[in-house]
């Protein structure tokens, strides 16, 4: 059965020696498996005949040996159906055939026919036999005194294993052993090198990763080199810390895009019995899809993996520091732990960076948006502005709609709907309407909770439904999970509540938004209140104007006598126009009344008429009073002042006592009237004016002009439309109604009831000359009412005509020619500013030569103090 090496050698010892030496050189040069195969195929086959050779290695952990080196070209069994199986098989060391080899001192050969059918014999013997191989020469390879493997040499020709062959193999065995050891070492080294350069390259690529897309590309390229059968999936732990979703993946079998999208968007609970196991394991976990399914793990992705052909999968947690980020699922069953952990730590860092980056970007976006929101909100002046801003911010930042914003009423108890987006409740509009207008107070349970909370309250709709709340029913119609109620506060004062429906909201953003909304609402409320006050003031103002009007209008003017009828006709003719009106009349005839009546009948009646009493102002201030002045125009002009003319722009100005206006002011007034523009005192800017001028005087302006006290040109400008008011003595018919009017007015004021005015009294009044006109009558009546005792007015205290006036009249009547001449000369001198002769002098006016006047003055005793004012 066994053939030992005692056959006759074909080669001489010397030849053998030389050959061995040459082979030994070759063997020491062996670096890899190919070198060894070449040695057998090229060198040894040239000397001895055999069909093929293989090397197997012993695995002590399970006491087996397994092919290490195969002769791919020479092997006749390569097309045997069991060849593949043989290549990967582990053959037990505990059987007689291999034990015989282990016990043999040197190479030992067997006829396959003898041993292949022994009960424990390894199957490769029969496989070889079936492909024509007849004999096998087994040689043990030793390492550190222990068998490490075997060289199998096969032949199809009997007697191929000559003694020379055997002895050469025996001689070569130690060198072959070290060659195989070297090959193993080399392979290990190369693998390590390969891993290191792989990791280095991966690390370099990962360092350049900035986005998720970069990461996907890099990871795909790198993991592709590990040749996963069906691809890989990286899942990321979602923000809720309870689920995971696909992050980056690569699948060899392209699945249905619909299913893929569904999977991409799904969130798998972490604690599903598998993902949590991977996350809790500090080593890569190899698991079997079928086994996990049969274990009862129901996660949808397992079923899906199964359909994609995944069987065994390695799951490795992706972890940055102490934080789990996700899992890498890789469809391989050879786990190179250092390599995988290297890859995963890199992926983890990149993921953490990207996520941090994303978060920063998102935060920035959010902040930028909040900033926008803040500026939108600060510009919001009306509810509509605010609503637009709020709807926008809710949609953009938290993708939700405003369910309701209620504002606490002034009573501090009720809350009124302020703003809402009814489109959110499009499913149940009637219910919504009902709820919107239902009464809500601060004591309503949900509202009370929200108002009492610091940062708002989240209500789970499902739980609220159980309590049977009507609101919960409304909320549930939206299909959303939660309701967020937040208090709107300004400072620590609650001003309302805001309600949002969503599945999840970021509290931080919400808080920011609510604070701004609260401020905006309180601003708008303040604004609305302000507007309301303003409106009220306007109404009051109108009312007051109305009141003023009722005091000063045509109806105030009493008397329908013929003289007054003329006046009225003139007034109605001129009122509509913008023409300047000059009201003339003795003192007390009611010039101001007429001026106001003209204004009130004009289109400018909505604006107040500005009245200036030219006589009442100091001469040096009148200009600034009329035309205004700039700051610093003169000493004491510490601020700009708007003049009466500017004030009366688009209205009327009433210049009372125009005759008293100083000459300087007259010039300026003239210019304003001519140009319809003015310059403030000390100012450079011309101000356009649209002012209607009404002037009044009790003086005879023609005479004033003649006397040189009034500018002629101004007089002509003013005297466009003169209205002469008749003196009361010419209006006998009006005395009775006027008296009745004043009696009523003053008896009311004085609280005395005057039942009757006696005809005797009226007769008395009518016969009086009324030098003070209507004003005198008014005061007379007032006085009489105060003096009346019995409710009957039958006596007025008409001042008796004084002696002085009579005397005056007498003096006037009984004067000598000299006296008259003297007075007249003095008067003329006064008018001519004391100038006696020359142009504009008194001599010229009196049409006498200067010398003649001089001598007359001497003769009549006129001295300088008589005519110098």
């Amino acid at each position, binding site marked *: 059965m066994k053939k030992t090496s005692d056959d006759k050698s074909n080669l001489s010892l010397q030849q053998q020696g030389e050959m061995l030496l040459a082979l030994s050189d070759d063997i020491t040069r062996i670096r890899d498996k190919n070198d060894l195969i070449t040695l057998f195929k090229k060198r040894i086959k040239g000397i001895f005949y055999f069909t093929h050779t293989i090397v197997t290695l012993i695995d*002590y952990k399970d006491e087996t040996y397994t092919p290490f080196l195969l002769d791919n070209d020479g092997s006749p069994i390569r097309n045997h159906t069991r060849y593949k199986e043989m290549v990967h098989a582990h053959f037990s060391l505990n059987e007689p055939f291999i034990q015989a080899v282990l016990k043999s001192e040197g190479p030992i050969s067997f006829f396959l026919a003898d041993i292949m059918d022994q009960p424990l014999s390894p199957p490769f013997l029969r496989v070889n036999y079936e492909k024509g191989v007849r004999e096998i020469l087994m040689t043990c390879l030793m390492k550190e005194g222990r068998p490490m493997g075997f060289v199998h040499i096969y032949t199809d020709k009997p007697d191929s294993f000559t003694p020379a062959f055997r002895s050469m193999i025996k001689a070569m065995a130690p060198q072959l052993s070290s060659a195989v050891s070297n090959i193993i070492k080399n392979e290990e080294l190369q693998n390590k090198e390969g891993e290191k350069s792989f990791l280095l390259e991966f690390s370099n690529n990962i360092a350049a990763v900035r986005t998720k897309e970069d990461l996907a590309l890099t990871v795909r390229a790198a993991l592709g080199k590990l040749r996963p059968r069906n691809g890989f999936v990286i899942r990321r732990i979602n923000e809720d810390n309870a689920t995971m979703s696909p992050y980056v993946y690569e699948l060899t079998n392209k699945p249905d895009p619909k299913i893929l999208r569904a999977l991409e968007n799904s969130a798998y609970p972490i604690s599903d019995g598998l993902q949590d196991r991977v996350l809790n394991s500090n080593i890569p976990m*190899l698991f079997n899809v079928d086994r996990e399914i049969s274990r009862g793990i129901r996660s949808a992705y397992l079923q899906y993996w199964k359909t994609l052909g995944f069987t065994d999968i390695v799951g490795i947690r992706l972890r940055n520091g102490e934080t789990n980020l996700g899992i890498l699922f890789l469809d391989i069953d050879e786990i190179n*732990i250092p390599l995988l952990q290297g890859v995963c730590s890199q992926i983890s860092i990149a993921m953490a960076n990207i996520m941090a980056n994303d978060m920063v970007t998102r935060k920035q976006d959010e902040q930028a948006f909040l900033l926008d929101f803040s500026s939108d909100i600060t510009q919001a002046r009306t509810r509509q502005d605010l609503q637009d801003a709020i709807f926008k911010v809710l949609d953009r930042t938290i993708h939700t709609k405003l369910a309701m914003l209620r504002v606490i009423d002034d009573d501090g108890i009720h809350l009124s709907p302020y703003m809402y987006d009814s489109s959110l409740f499009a499913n149940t509009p009637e219910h919504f309407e009902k709820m919107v207008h239902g009464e809500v107070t601060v004591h309503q349970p949900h509202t009370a909770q929200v108002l009492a909370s610091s940062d708002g309250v989240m209500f789970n709709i499902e739980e609220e439904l159980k309590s049977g709340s009507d609101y919960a029913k409304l909320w549930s119609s939206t299909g959303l999970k939660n309701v967020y109620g937040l208090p709107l506060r300004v400072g620590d004062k609650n001003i309302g509540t805001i309600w949002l429906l969503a599945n999840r909201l970021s509290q931080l953003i919400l808080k920011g938004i609510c604070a701004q909304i609260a401020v905006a609402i309180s601003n708008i409320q303040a604004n609305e209140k302000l507007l309301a006050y303003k409106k009220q003031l306007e109404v009051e103002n109108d009312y007051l104007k109305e009141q003023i009007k009722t005091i000063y209008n045509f109806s105030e003017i009493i008397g329908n006598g013929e003289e007054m009828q003329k006046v009225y006709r003139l007034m109605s003719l001129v009122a509509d126009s913008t023409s300047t009106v000059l009201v003339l009349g003795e003192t007390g005839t009611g010039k101001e009344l007429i001026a106001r009546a003209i204004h009130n009948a004009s289109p400018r009646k909505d604006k107040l008429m500005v009245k200036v009493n030219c006589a009442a102002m100091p001469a040096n201030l009148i200009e600034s009073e009329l035309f205004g002045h700039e700051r610093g125009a003169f000493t004491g002009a510490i601020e700009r002042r708007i003049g009466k003319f500017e004030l009366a722009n688009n209205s009327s100005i009433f210049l009372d006592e125009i005759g008293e206006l100083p000459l300087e002011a007259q010039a300026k007034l003239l210019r304003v009237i001519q140009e319809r523009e003015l310059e403030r005192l000390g100012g450079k800017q011309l101000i356009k004016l649209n002012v209607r001028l009404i002037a009044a005087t009790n003086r005879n302006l023609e005479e004033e002009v003649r006397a040189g006290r009034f500018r002629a040109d101004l007089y002509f400008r003013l005297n466009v439309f003169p209205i002469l008011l008749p003196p009361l003595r010419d209006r006998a018919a009006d005395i009775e109604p006027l008296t009745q009017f004043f009696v009523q007015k003053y008896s009311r004021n004085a609280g005395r009831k005057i039942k009757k005015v006696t005809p005797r009294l009226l007769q008395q009044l009518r016969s009086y000359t009324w030098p003070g006109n209507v004003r005198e009558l008014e005061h007379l009546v007032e006085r009489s009412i105060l003096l009346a005792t019995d409710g009957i007015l039958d006596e007025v205290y008409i001042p008796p005509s004084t002696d002085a006036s009579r005397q005056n009249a007498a003096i006037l009547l009984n004067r000598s020619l000299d006296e008259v001449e003297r007075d007249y000369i003095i008067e003329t001198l006064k008018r001519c500013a004391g100038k006696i002769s020359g142009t504009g002098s008194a001599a010229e006016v009196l049409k006498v030569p200067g010398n003649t006047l001089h001598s007359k003055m001497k003769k009549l005793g006129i001295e300088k103090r008589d005519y110098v004012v």
Partner: protein
Amino acid sequence: MKIVVIGGSGLIGTKVVARLRQEGHQVIAASPATGINTLTGEGLAEALQNTDIVIDLANSPSFEDKAVMEFFQTSGRNLLAAEINAGVKHHLALSIVGVDIMQNLGYMRAKKAQEDLIVQSGVPYTIIRSTQFFEFLAGIANQATEGNTVHLSDVSFQPIAAEDVAAFVTGFALGTPLNGRVEIAGPERFELFDVVARYLRHTNDPRKVEPNGKPEYFGGGISHTSLVPAGEASLGALNFESWWSRQAQPVA
């Protein structure tokens, strides 16, 4: 059946592996030397593929409190996780009699932690708590030697032969998981110093054994009965003499 023996190259491991192979099982003797490292996980998942039974006989390479705890916790977690993945049907681990009453000792805390992990894992299990092995006697003597004297406690001691332990381990491993603990011990109970003295006499060791009367083991305080089974225990076949007779006698 495919059986993986963690620590398969150790004192008990080699014996268990040999016994199981003799019974025709496919056995993987796992140890860092054979490329299977429970601490790093290296080779673990591959080795456990299609495995029916895992026998954990591994011991920590360091006996420092922290390192031991780290070893048993980490390797225990890794191993059990891999077993769950591989669908292992029986996990058998070797522990120590009295482990839960000697929690003042770091090593015992670590072994207890290992037991707890197994119980919580959900993998069907059997935990064998064994007394000390006869094979430890030399070591016990050495660590207590001062000069020519061995100072030892008089605590109760009931050592068992490694061969018997291997037999129990093999037997329990192939049986139905108990999902509980069993205790094994040698057939005879001694006082610690006494059995060591006997051992030294047999080995012609000139050192003298002095009982110190302190209840301690490897320098740690224990009770007198901590090291022996409190209740019912399976007893090994080999007593001191029969064990000794099986040892390869040192060449005189």
